[in-house]
């Protein structure tokens, strides 16, 4: 066993390291509560008059609409992905035919593909379908990664549920679909919740698809905040406030699902 002293110093060392590692993040957070003069002040003061002006000013702009767009798209994407993906995950879990490895590859590659690989064909198709700059267009393209994510997360979960469960229901005269909705689905609670949150986060975090496929109407918050950077004279306070608002839901939700992050990102390659 390590001695108490060594243990203590290790704790202190780790804590200092954590503060150092997170300082860039904390800086942005603090910056969002500073006046412009305070942002350019050197040396920075630890205690400064806290202002919410940046947030107030931000809320006066179109950022408000973009933030709402982000919410709508992320929630819709989550609902649609779960509705389609959960049955698919269950079906794949009970798959006995050949080609299992090929399907796994298909789903993993969909998750890992560079966004531009989907953006080009979707962009071309959306020009004809008139889906450019629409929320629907974003929800559909987000299926490329979220549908794969749902299958990826839920399939190992269903692998662990014994087949005898639904087989018993079939013997009692239930259809395949009833076996799924009445027996399997109610058992999926915790995994389903974690998957839903991850879906929301991936849709919420997207920047590339929204950058290309939206202009004004359907612009999401990450794209809107970047637009502040193109103005004459950088509005750092507002940019920091916008960044903080975008990361807030992410931080809360990630904390809730931190145990599922490993499997969410690697699909059970490593059990977390």
């Amino acid at each position, binding site marked *: 066993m390590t001695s108490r002293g060594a*243990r203590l110093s290790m704790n202190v060392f*780790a*804590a200092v*390291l954590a503060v150092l*590692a*997170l300082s*860039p*993040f904390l*800086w*942005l957070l603090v910056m969002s509560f500073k006046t412009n003069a305070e942002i350019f002040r*050197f*040396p920075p003061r630890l205690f400064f008059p806290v202002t919410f002006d940046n947030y107030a000013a931000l809320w006066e702009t179109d950022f408000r609409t973009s933030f709402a767009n982000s919410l709508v798209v992320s929630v819709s994407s989550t609902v649609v992905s779960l509705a*389609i*993906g959960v*049955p*698919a995950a269950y079906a794949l879990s009970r798959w006995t035919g050949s080609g*299992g*490895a090929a399907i*796994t*590859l*298909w789903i*993993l*590659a*969909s998750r*890992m*593909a*560079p*966004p*531009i*690989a989907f*953006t*080009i*064909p979707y962009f*071309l*198709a959306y020009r004809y379908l008139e889906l450019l700059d629409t929320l629907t267009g974003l929800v*559909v*393209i987000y*299926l*490329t990664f979220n*549908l*794969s994510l749902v299958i990826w997360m839920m399939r190992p979960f269903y*692998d662990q549920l014994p087949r005898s469960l639904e087989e018993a229901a079939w013997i009692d005269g239930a259809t395949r679909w009833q076996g799924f909705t009445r027996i399997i689905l109610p058992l999926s609670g915790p995994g389903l919740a974690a998957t839903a949150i991850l879906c929301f*986060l991936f849709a919420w975090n997207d*920047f590339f698809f929204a950058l*290309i496929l939206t202009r004004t109407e359907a612009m999401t918050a990450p794209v809107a*905040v*970047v637009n502040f*950077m193109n103005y004459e004279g950088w509005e*750092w306070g507002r940019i920091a406030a916008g*960044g903080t608002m*975008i*990361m807030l839901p*992410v931080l809360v939700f990630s904390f809730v699902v*931190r145990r599922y*992050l*490993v499997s969410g990102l*690697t699909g059970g*390659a*490593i059990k*977390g």
Partner: protein
Amino acid sequence: MAPSLAVLAVVTLLPSLYLLVTSFTPLNLTRPETQWDFSQPLISYGQLLQDERLANSVWVQVKLSFWTVTLQLLIGVALALLLNVKSKLLEALRTVFLIPMVLPPIVVAIIWKVIYTPDISPMHQALAAMGWNVPALITDPQWALTSIIIADTWEWFPFTMLMVLAALQMLPQELLDAAKVDGASPWQLTRHVTLPFIQGVLLVAGLFRLIDSIKAFPLIYILTDGGPGSLTEVTNYYSFQQAFNFSYLGFSSAITVVLLAATILLSWIIIRSVGWGTKID
């Protein structure tokens, strides 16, 4: 159940096919008649081989991927070993260290834009106070790529850390005890017991990061826009420029098909190294 798989096929396979088809045309958005022009199907692929800017972008990509994956693995393992002790504080810190990875990529890019902008950067101000006049790193040819590598490493070291921590939890205590009885030092324990145990996880974590590094976009878009010159222009970024700044979608599709093929190949390697698809039960 089959319909749900059909949806996945429609949203992923069909567009991939369309991408492949487009890569056989010289599609230029300013000339609509080029969309279905298959008279010279391989013209874009021919250009790929001669395009020096593309060759440069591949080299930038190799440098970026090599350094970020290496640094993330090193830092991730070091931190995981440090934090893998039963202690309330350290367990809480594990969660705290995850923050950079879960932040929206665009926020990470903004954070580093602040750090790298001399006017408001605490780093630049501190260095200047110490008498060092450091150039703006993201516009400095010598530092631009390094500054991207630093930001990317910061964003993703938690991923490797998390995976290694998960693996360490499965390290059987008997293995460590047995080595200790044989008189192994802490360093020897790490070197000969722990590291061999986690090497499989390191391979998978590295592969995941490698694939992701091919997608690097928000950091480059916000920090350097591929510059100065094309010093930080990775292949993905170059393809984006060709498609959506210059409207050469045909050429860009050809580049992207190659990127997609690389992704599929690497995904396949992951599947092989984890052994998915060969059902255990």
